[in-house]
């Protein structure tokens, strides 16, 4: 499939897992970023179709990255991710413009469902 995916997460291991899952379900173009600045830079360059953002990043929060990307393109499809279900953080991410939330570590089923729902917009 031609959709471009982007993963924003400071963990190399998690980016590798996500990349593997995405490739396994048929998405071969996967862009990676480990912090907010890199995410914004890569977004401007690559314009991915779906962006998965960890809510806890070393420099800025995932909510701030979400806002920064949506400022560049308000139509960007952003999926918030977190290893903990923090309802306040999820609500903040959704209010900031994220479309959905995925619990880390995710799986092919959840990932595929989210991409089917939002990726085709």
């Amino acid at each position, binding site marked *: 499939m031609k959709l471009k995916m982007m993963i924003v997460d400071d963990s190399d291991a998690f980016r590798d897992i996500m990349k593997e899952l995405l490739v*396994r*379900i048929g998405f071969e173009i996967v862009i990676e970023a480990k912090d907010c600045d890199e995410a914004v830079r890569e977004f401007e360059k690559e314009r991915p179709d779906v962006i998965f953002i960890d809510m806890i990043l070393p420099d800025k929060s995932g909510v701030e990255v979400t806002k920064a990307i949506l400022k560049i393109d308000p139509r960007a499809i952003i999926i918030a991710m977190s290893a*903990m*279900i*923090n*309802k306040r953080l*999820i*609500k903040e991410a*959704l209010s900031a413009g994220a*479309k*959905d*939330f995925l*619990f880390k*570590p*995710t*799986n*092919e*089923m*959840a990932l*595929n*469902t*989210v991409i*089917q*729902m*939002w990726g085709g917009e």
Partner: protein
Amino acid sequence: MFWKRRKKGMRPELAEPEELLQISRKYFLQKGKSYIVEDPAAAISYDIFVNLLSTEVGGVRLRGYIVSRQHPNLLRKHFGLTETPITWLATQAGENSLDPTSLGMLTHSIVDFFNKTENSIVLLDGVEYLITNNDFRKVVRILEQINDAVMHFKGRLMVPIDPRAFDMKELAILERYFEVISPKKGIKGFPELQKFKKIER
């Protein structure tokens, strides 16, 4: 019963629905069915459980109950569960704990929850611990009783297991009563996967 002295909100029969989050329903579990999830760390089982409790489809909200080897405070913190009753499987006495050898009491608490709760789901996490403290046949017997209640009261049951902890014959027995969710098989490992719901934004 062992939970009667508990404060409101901790008693399985008084389970309240969790707060709805504006996220999409990513999984579908059929009413009246029991599932084993081949999920050694139980992460996917909890993801499914929390996703079903935090979303609604057609105005229907599920109420849940967890029986786990993991401490309730840890689960509440990690999964943001405030309303779901949790029973801790432990030899440590306490008002929310249950000794793993008390299989009758365990069965009763789950069956009673299904009996008193509409649109219910139970996550039974720690079946290996139950087997260690009893024996496989005894545990299968209570799973059969719970499965009968699931069918009768149209509940849903999820039991995460580590397939490495069972031999082939034991796995075959479990698979006779349960639908199998097998994430290692990818999307094909999830039964009835097409019934998700998009959130309108």
